[in-house]
């Protein structure tokens, strides 16, 4: 998939490019609004990531302009100015999602995946994990055809996030940011992820061994899927 990254912070733009290239996206990078405006006029993209705080261009104007030539692209707004009204305005103008800086790269990828699923209507989004089947669309885990109802919403979120980033170690920080990121609180180092994982293992173990859910010592967790 083709991604256009419009970000004036060169260091950040480079990291986005490296990360997305790793996830098999084909990336182009613009550091200012003028060159981005030229690019969207001639090329077609699947994803356009726009930083609202461009020095030479009003980010929302660029979004409007890009939508003319790239109506089918998915737009994600990235901004450090996390004003609430910017967010509403951006979404009103047809952006598909909005990420406030600083964000985790994994979070960006998960949002892109979600948009892809929505836009291209992936129906059969079921992942096989040992004896378990995880349906990411209906958000259920089954074992031999029986739904495991004891899994809570939060626990499913964790499993889904690990599946999305399969075969990579996802750190506790990244997991906490994904499931508690919008809560503003006083803690900066909570290890409640471990407690959640413990619960998930316990619940699944009653059906079959969830040996695909690995603890990477001292680092985080990983779901192994052989492809």
């Amino acid at each position, binding site marked *: 998939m083709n991604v256009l990254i419009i970000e004036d*912070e060169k*260091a*950040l733009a480079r*990291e*986005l490019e*490296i*990360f997305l290239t*790793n996830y098999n996206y084909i990336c182009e990078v613009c550091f200012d609004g003028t060159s981005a405006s030229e690019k969207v006029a001639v090329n077609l993209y699947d994803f356009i990531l726009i930083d609202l705080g461009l020095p030479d261009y009003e980010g929302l104007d660029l979004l409007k302009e890009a939508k003319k030539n790239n109506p089918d692209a998915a737009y994600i707004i990235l901004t*450090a*100015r*996390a*004003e*609430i*009204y910017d967010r509403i305005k951006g979404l009103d103008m047809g952006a598909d999602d909005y990420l*406030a*800086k*600083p*964000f*985790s*790269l*994994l979070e960006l990828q998960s949002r892109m995946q979600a948009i892809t699923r929505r836009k291209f209507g992936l129906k059969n989004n079921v992942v096989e994990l040992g004896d378990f089947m995880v349906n990411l669309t209906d958000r259920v885990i089954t074992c031999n055809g029986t739904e495991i109802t004891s899994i*809570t*919403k*939060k626990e499913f979120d964790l499993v889904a996030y690990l599946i999305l980033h399969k075969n*990579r*170690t996802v*750190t506790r*920080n*990244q997991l906490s*940011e994904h499931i*508690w990121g*919008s*809560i*503003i*609180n*006083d*803690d*900066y*180092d*909570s290890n*409640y992820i471990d*407690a*959640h994982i413990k*619960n998930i293992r316990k619940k699944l173990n009653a059906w079959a061994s969830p040996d695909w859910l690995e603890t990477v010592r*001292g*680092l*985080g967790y990983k779901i192994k899927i052989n492809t």
Partner: protein
Amino acid sequence: MKLRTKLTLFNTISKLVIVTLFVLLLPVLIKNINQNYTDSRLRKQKDKVLQTVKDLGIKYYIQNGESYAGYTPIKDVYVSLDEDTLNEDLDNIQNEVRKVEGDTIAYRILSHNFSIDKKKYLLEIGISQDTVNERTAPLQSIAFLVLVTMIILTIVADQLYSDYILRPLNLIIKTKLVGNKFPNFGSYKQVRTTTSDFQHLDISIHQMIRTIESTFQKEREFISNASHELMTPISILQSKIENMFEEEDIADELKVRLLEMQKILNRLKSITKTLLLISQIENDQFLKEDKTTIGALLQDVYDEISIRLQDKNISYEAIIPENWVLVNINKFLMFNLFFNLVNNAIKYNKEGGEIRIEAVKENSAFVVKITDTGLGIIATDLPFIFNRFKKLRQSLQQESFGLGLPIVKSIADFHRIKIEVESEKDKGSTFKLIFPAELVV
């Protein structure tokens, strides 16, 4: 005590003292005046008699050596002229008792002797004391009446004038210092007064308020700008660390160190995000248009936080009336308010402790109480718990940065919710949220 009351009190008391003093002195004064008046009358009479003697000769009064004596029928005035045998000169006035035709009467008597044709004569003129005293009583009562009337008049006048003159001061106090939240950042109207002291006071308050307001504003702007500006560098660092973490040729021990960096960055990120949130709340950037039941809100909090309760084996109980609906609130903020309070109740609780949330109506006020069985807060620390970055000695946990309660306070202030805290060391704390009536239906 109010200035006006003090002035009134002083006025009244000082006047009462003067009146009492005057009333006590009045008889003596009046008596004195009366005596002076009587004495001068006696002297005039004496002069008249002497003039008659000079014009008509002593024979007009005394013939054949017989003495002269005359008095009015009721014996209140008498005059006597007689030959005198004493050698010394006499000219005085004194009180004496005389017997006149069987009646003993106290007189004020002028005695004067003089000589004519080598003979000495003694003139005595007397006015009875009763006559003198008769005049005292009416004089006294008139003086008393006039005095009281004057005093009452001046008290009333003083009162009215001090009322008038103090009106601007009352206005300044009422509209600028009390009633509203001080400092009251609204439009500031000048108080009209001709008293320069009050003008000075009013202008000084204006200037103070303006200074405070601009300092507040600058602080808010600074926090907002600083936290915004920090977001991009943090974002770059986070992305770099995440990308490095995914590199395959990096040894595990380096990865652990990257993770530590990520944790520290996370701390910086949390602090910055929290400060930004507080500044956004204080800059009124949130709408208050949401509606939800307290039960639903607390259920959301519970869903997020149950893992923490379970981790510390803490029991949680929420007793909430079904029909309490919160209106005109910001759901995101209210969620964060309750989340932080419950989170604190867990964080500072003991293993296996309890948390109890109760929504009750107390004297027509809607109150939500969050009680824990935790460490408690010592009384001397209570006034500081809402200060930013204030970490109390007892909170030994390293994983917080002292912004939990400041968030709660900002959100509560934004919704005009009052917070009261009761706490006892080693027993636990109760946070009481008192909702204004307009938030609950």
